[in-house]
């Protein structure tokens, strides 16, 4: 058995949480079917799988947020009432959500005590007691956080730490503190250094004897901090392995399973190429020739201080840097969404009016922004119109829509980018995360686009879709498009880019090409103190 691992516990490991035959159905989707897993006290246990594999659903079922259709959950041998948040809470189960579910307008202390604000004898909020309690919770994780500051003033990493701190609260009825903490993709909005800090905290909590269920699809995190990993695929249990006994390709194989034997062998190759830390194909670097995109001296007060670069046709130009370095802000400024920005953008040698996205689109610039939900998609419009909205006026005449032209364009893009949707008119909300991302990419990758700005194009999508996105990026470059790529996944950045520019505090810290493009060099530049 796996549990004879001497790292976990020598004397009969204590199974703190046991999931037995849990199934859950959402409409036509079988999110979980007959899943059984055991979690041991003091371990960090990863749940892995593609988007839609059921890993988040399993986490939420344990925490009582979803009520399984069948199955049982045992905490320390006691059967848990299913679908009850209160029962789960009383049993010591806590969940730290993917999104930051907090009130940024309230102070850290108020957020931490929101579920049970301390009251004085008049029934008013007892601020002193509240701050003291918050202080106690935060101190365990990050003593430098000021509990009286508004939460919105904190960096995302700190806010995430506050969210973890909430889960450590013991509850007023003295039912005891947490015993099991479920982390649901906790690092999706964190920078590199913040992620490192979070992983430390996760291990610290496990060392204190808690069971950590770590839901993620970031390989590096699994290997950095987890003891065991359970893989789910299409709602089914696949395997549980000790992290020390498994390597990345095997894990990927478990996650995408069936596809390996299918015709899409090259997808895996793409992932492997990246997993193997980017073997660079020197010949693909174009370099020569007139730049297709030239950016000169972009300045935006407080954000960017004179950023210049140029990208040749067929080149993938990566932008590295930590969160807050101004990468997305640079993209916004280039695309004309920052009215404060000044500088010059030239497409194919011609200067394009700054500050007007319309002018950029007409010049052939496409921009896939970082947050597809907030900045990208229209959830009240159909899939078809989500693709065609920026080009409606170009297709139509005198303000009238060209319905046939739009339909043809949409059908072409949906087929070319393999966006899986029930009908052209379906709402984007009915698509999986990966298909939503492909939809957004399909909007911008097309005939009219020559310059593509991609900001985190693979965020929150599964391994299979990531591979498709990689191929799309390379294919666009092969056609002669100029591509600017931002990604927080270092391996992705190094594997896909021909050149990498590193930003730090709104300035260009350096540019890397060829053999200089290593993780170490990017990080060194990114963390360099800017004058």
């Amino acid at each position, binding site marked *: 058995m796996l549990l004879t691992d001497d790292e976990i516990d020598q004397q009969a490991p204590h199974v703190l949480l046991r999931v037995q035959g849990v199934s859950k159905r959402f409409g036509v989707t079988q999110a979980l079917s007959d899943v059984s897993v055991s979690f041991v006290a003091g371990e960090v246990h990863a749940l892995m799988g593609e988007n839609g594999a059921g890993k988040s659903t399993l986490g939420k079922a344990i925490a009582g947020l979803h009520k399984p259709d069948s199955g049982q959950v045992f905490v320390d041998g006691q059967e848990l009432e299913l679908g009850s948040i209160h029962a789960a809470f009383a049993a010591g189960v806590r969940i730290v959500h993917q999104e930051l579910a907090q009130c940024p307008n309230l102070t850290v202390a108020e957020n931490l005590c929101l579920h049970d604000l301390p009251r004085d004898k008049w029934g008013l909020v007892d601020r002193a007691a509240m701050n003291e309690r918050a202080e106690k919770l935060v101190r365990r994780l990050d003593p430098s956080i000021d509990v009286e500051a508004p939460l919105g003033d904190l960096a995302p990493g700190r806010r995430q730490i506050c969210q973890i701190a909430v889960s450590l609260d013991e509850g007023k009825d003295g039912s005891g503190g947490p015993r099991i903490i479920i982390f649901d993709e906790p690092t999706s909005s964190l920078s590199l250094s913040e992620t490192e800090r979070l992983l430390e905290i996760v291990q610290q909590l496990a060392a204190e004897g808690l069971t950590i269920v770590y839901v993620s699809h970031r390989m590096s995190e699994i290997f950095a901090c987890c003891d065991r990993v359970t893989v789910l695929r299409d709602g089914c249990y696949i395997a549980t392995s000790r992290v020390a006994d498994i390597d990345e390709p095997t894990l990927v194989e478990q996650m995408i399973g069936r596809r390996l034997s299918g015709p899409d062998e090259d997808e895996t190759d793409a992932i492997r190429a990246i997993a193997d830390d980017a073997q660079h194909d020197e010949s693909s670097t174009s370099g020569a020739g007139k730049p297709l995109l030239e950016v000169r001296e972009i300045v935006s007060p407080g954000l960017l201080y004179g950023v210049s670069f140029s990208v040749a046709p067929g080149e993938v130009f990566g932008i590295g840097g930590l969160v807050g370095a101004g990468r997305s802000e640079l993209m916004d400024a280039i695309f004309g969404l920052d009215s404060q920005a000044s500088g010059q953008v030239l497409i194919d040698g011609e200067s394009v009016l700054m500050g007007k996205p319309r002018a950029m689109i007409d010049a052939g610039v496409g921009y896939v922004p970082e947050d597809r939900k907030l900045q*990208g*998609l229209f959830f009240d419009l159909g899939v078809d*119109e989500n693709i065609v909205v920026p080009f409606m006026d170009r297709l139509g005449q005198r303000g009238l*829509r060209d*319905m046939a032209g739009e339909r043809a364009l949409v059908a072409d893009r949906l087929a070319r980018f393999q966006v899986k949707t029930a009908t052209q*008119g*379906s709402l984007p909300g009915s698509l999986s995360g990966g298909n939503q991302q492909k939809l957004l990419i399909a909007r911008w990758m097309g005939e009219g686009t020559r310059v593509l700005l991609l900001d985190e194009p693979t965020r929150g999508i599964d391994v299979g879709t990531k591979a498709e996105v990689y191929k799309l990026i390379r294919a666009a470059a092969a056609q002669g498009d100029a591509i600017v790529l931002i990604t927080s996944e270092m391996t992705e950045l190094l594997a896909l880019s021909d050149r990498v520019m590193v930003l730090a505090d709104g300035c260009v810290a350096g540019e890397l090409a060829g053999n200089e493009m290593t993780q170490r060099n990017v990080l060194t530049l990114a963390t360099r103190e800017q004058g």
Partner: protein
Amino acid sequence: MTQTDDPVSSGLNGTPRPWYRRLFAAQESGLVLVILVLGLLLTVFGGSKIKSVRFDLDVNDQITTRQIADSDGGETHYEVTIEHADGSSTRHISIRQPRERTTDSGRFVLLSVKANRFLDLENLVLVTKDASFIAIMAVGMTGVIILAGIDLSVGSIYGLVAIIGAMILHELPGDTSAFVSVPIGVIVCMAAGAMCGLANGVMVVGLKVHPFVITLGMMAALRGLTVVLPKELYDTQSIGQFPASYTSGFFKAEIFGVYPVPVVIMVIVGLIGMFLLSRTVFGRQVFAVGGNETAAGYAGISVGRVKILVYTLAGLTAGMSAAIYLGYLGAAETSAGNAYELRVIAATVIGGASLMGGRGTALGAVLGAILIEMINNAMIILDIDQDYNQIVMGAAIIVAVVIDQTKGKMGSRRRS
């Protein structure tokens, strides 16, 4: 819906769905159903009334009246035969003694006939005429609501425009031709309304203040102007005496015994609204901005321009509505359009528009306005005290919106 080649109605493979499926899936189908059911109930339970029907007679026409017993042996009826000079004759039934009159306008006979209190051309046109003032404004308001905005000033714009239009029409000679008076009246009213809407839009976009605040301020300010203008200029609260060509000659023209012009205009405005929102680039940009303003910016849409245009159009429809009001009533009062904004917003929301933005249809807004007037009409037909009107109306708004939201939650793939 009339859009036969809408992409929604066809599957991915291009085969169109059968018309009945499309009809059922259409967003407004529920509202149409409610209106039909309410109409049916009113027809059945509203009972009948006796109304006079007027038949114009030539000088040489002969009338003969014969008293007949009803087949049941109950009430007595009168059979009226009108013999025309050319030898032809028409026969009518009256339930009371017919009365023959001769006035300046000619000779006619009044017959009494039994009519359903609801399902009667006169009543139906009356209900839709009352609805049309609200409905036309609701079409403009739909755009604003889709933007996740609000326009509280439409009632005041309506009032102010009515006064301005009345001042102009009042100055025209009484015998002005309809070809002059109608274009002048309509253009002045629509332009004045559009200017007010433009002011709303420019302030909402330029000052970056929530539209609730801007239009709340405009609502008060424009109403004040409406009162002050006629008081200072004419020392009156009501301006009338328009060219007859503008009133009975056009907006209150009698056709088949009813006054259908406002209803016809309502239908036209509704159709234009539907077309504008679904088939023009601007229309889809309105949905995009309302659904996700940030994403609209990232998609290269000039968010500010779209917003200003939408508020301008809302003002324009208020002006249009005021132009009809002037023609139909023949005078403007300073209280015109008081509290209309709430009825307009109610019509829009009952019509399926979401105050969160991104959803709404012009057809829904028109149907919503009609439903509101039907409820009003129901109170009269069912002899319910008018004081209960507001209670029923308030409840109806909440019920309609809750039903609509539940329908949305039940997973119907709704689009606009």
